[in-house]
């Protein structure tokens, strides 16, 4: 899959060639979803790739700071890209859809306009940094499919999922807007389905897979956010899903945390939600007890037991 966007996506990065990537875990994987961070590192070890964390990077802006100032997210992310370049890493890998979408949007704004790039660099110059414009931002999901490859992944599977019915949940910021992401069709994406199939699961098709989890309005009106979770999980359950797979920790917090709160209106669903690297790492042989599955509010170990994947 490729794109014609001015986002450096068309070139195979030096990082991809050397299997050394800049790693931007994002805030939530360092705070309430540490199991995502840990399982990502375990998966990287299995894949024999090096994820080098950009430890001095700031928050990407979380799709919220734009509400306050037009330029802040762009310049904050330019600082992150400058740090990646200084470490010789031109490929920055994210594990959060909101980070992916907003960091790519910032990169697009910088790469499309000399004026905006100069503006950002004038500020970075105050502390001796400069962004040269060589960074590509990609999600771990894209790395798995483009750099590792589905065939290779399939060949590495030691614990196939035994036909586990998994509902992919793309959510929003990894596919929309298409002008920013564009790695696959936002209307008919299939990367998660391909991945689920490759590791021995059976993907479940349902209309909710590209809809919003409501995370960003949980604090604005929690019942509306819970309804958005309930609506989507109802659809997944009605199509036979036993579990959900998401590339985004914000979606994870919403789906894992709010199904209970929407049960009175949408019926109980109780679908366990896996972080992307958890399920892939599990299939590749990482022991279940190292993946932080016990941290989920809806325990995913029950479906693994039911499918005789763990005892």
């Amino acid at each position, binding site marked *: 899959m490729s794109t014609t966007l001015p986002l450096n996506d068309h070139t195979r990065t030096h990082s991809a060639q050397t299997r050394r990537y800049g790693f931007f875990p994002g805030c939530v994987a360092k705070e309430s979803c540490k199991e995502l961070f840990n399982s990502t590192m375990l998966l990287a070890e299995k894949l024999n790739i090096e994820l080098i964390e950009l430890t001095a990077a700031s928050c990407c802006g979380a799709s919220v700071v734009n509400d306050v*100032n037009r330029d802040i997210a762009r310049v904050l992310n330019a600082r992150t890209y400058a740090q990646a370049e200084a470490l010789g890493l031109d490929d920055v890998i994210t594990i959060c859809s909101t980070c992916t979408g907003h960091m790519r949007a910032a990169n697009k704004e910088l790469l499309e306009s000399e004026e905006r790039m100069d503006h950002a660099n004038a500020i970075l110059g105050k502390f001796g940094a400069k962004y040269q414009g060589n960074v590509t931002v990609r999600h771990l999901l894209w790395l798995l499919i483009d750099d590792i490859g589905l065939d290779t992944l399939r060949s590495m599977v030691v614990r196939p999922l035994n036909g586990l019915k998994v509902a992919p949940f793309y959510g929003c910021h990894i596919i929309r807007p298409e002008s920013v992401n564009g790695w696959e069709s936002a209307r008919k994406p299939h990367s998660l389905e391909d991945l689920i199939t490759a590791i021995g699961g059976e993907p479940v098709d349902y209309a909710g897979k590209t809809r919003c989890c409501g995370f960003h309005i949980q604090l604005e009106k929690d019942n509306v956010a819970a309804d958005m979770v309930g609506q989507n999980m109802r659809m997944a359950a009605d199509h036979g899903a036993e579990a959900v797979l998401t590339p985004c920790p914000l979606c994870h917090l919403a789906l894992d945390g709010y199904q209970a709160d929407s049960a009175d209106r949408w019926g109980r669903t109780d679908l366990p939600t896996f972080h992307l690297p958890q399920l892939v790492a599990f299939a590749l042989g990482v022991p279940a007890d190292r993946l932080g599955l016990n941290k989920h509010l809806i325990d995913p170990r029950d479906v693994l037991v039911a499918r005789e994947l763990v005892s």
Partner: protein
Amino acid sequence: MAKITLDIFRFDEAVDDVPHRDKVVVDVPETMTVLDALETAKAEVDGSISFRRSCRSAICGSCSMNIGGVTGLACKTPCNTVMDEDFVVKVDPMPNFQPMKDLVVHMDPFWDKYARLKPYLQPKDEDSAHATERRVSPDDMKKLVDVANCVMCATCYALCPVVSVDPAFAGPAAIAYAYRFIEDVRDGQRKERIAQISEDYLWLCAHCYACSYCPKHVDPNDRIIDVKRAAIKDRVMMDERGPRHALVVTKWIKKVGMLHETELIAGTIGRFNVRGLLKVAPLGLRMAYKGKLPPVFLKPIPKVDEVRTIFDALEVPVS
């Protein structure tokens, strides 16, 4: 030419209790638009098939409908981009609306939200004689032209997941149109307009970008952010959760370089809002039980001074 099957939602609220579907086969070029295929079906097979249409050129905004699961203008959608391997094109009325007859829906909630904007210029002065012209610079006008392209097809409203669960939400088109008046230099009701759209749940937008599928590239998603910025700039309804949330996120990024999950929950709900905090307590307790609570104290990231330099250079408000 190809035999294309239109799988059409059929319903007449005057006589039907439940909808049914009809499959109509038309022999047309694959590249024909869905609207022209529907016109062919109506002319040659079944004259009772109902749908709205007028211009056939994506200017009038009448023919928005759900095509193969995606809402958009039928006149702008070629059959071969939406049909399945058996040459079937599924057409349904727009979601988030009450069906009236076949693909025609009741548009009233959409128009009501538009009418609430008072969608006409209300000048600052009382110059009822219109003695002088009101001039707009090209730069000021440039801000408005994107929204002026809106044809009110309601595609964005039909796609909006917030509208689907809370019909009180103004929806993308109304907020984009509010922006068109808020940013018009000739208008004198800027603050009142920002307050009105805030009351109609401006801050309930879930940042999902479903409205980025706008067939006229109005991109309501970006205009919604513009209106939120206007609200913060003019300090309208700053005690509401929306603006408080945006500012507390921003404040803590400046302080520690990261999103501070614990602080932003307390800061958005209000540290002394006991009832609000009690409402999130059950989820908090469930998370605590699983050892999943975010840290209460966060160490600033290395070189956090650089982050603060950026905030200061851009004069970003944090309260």
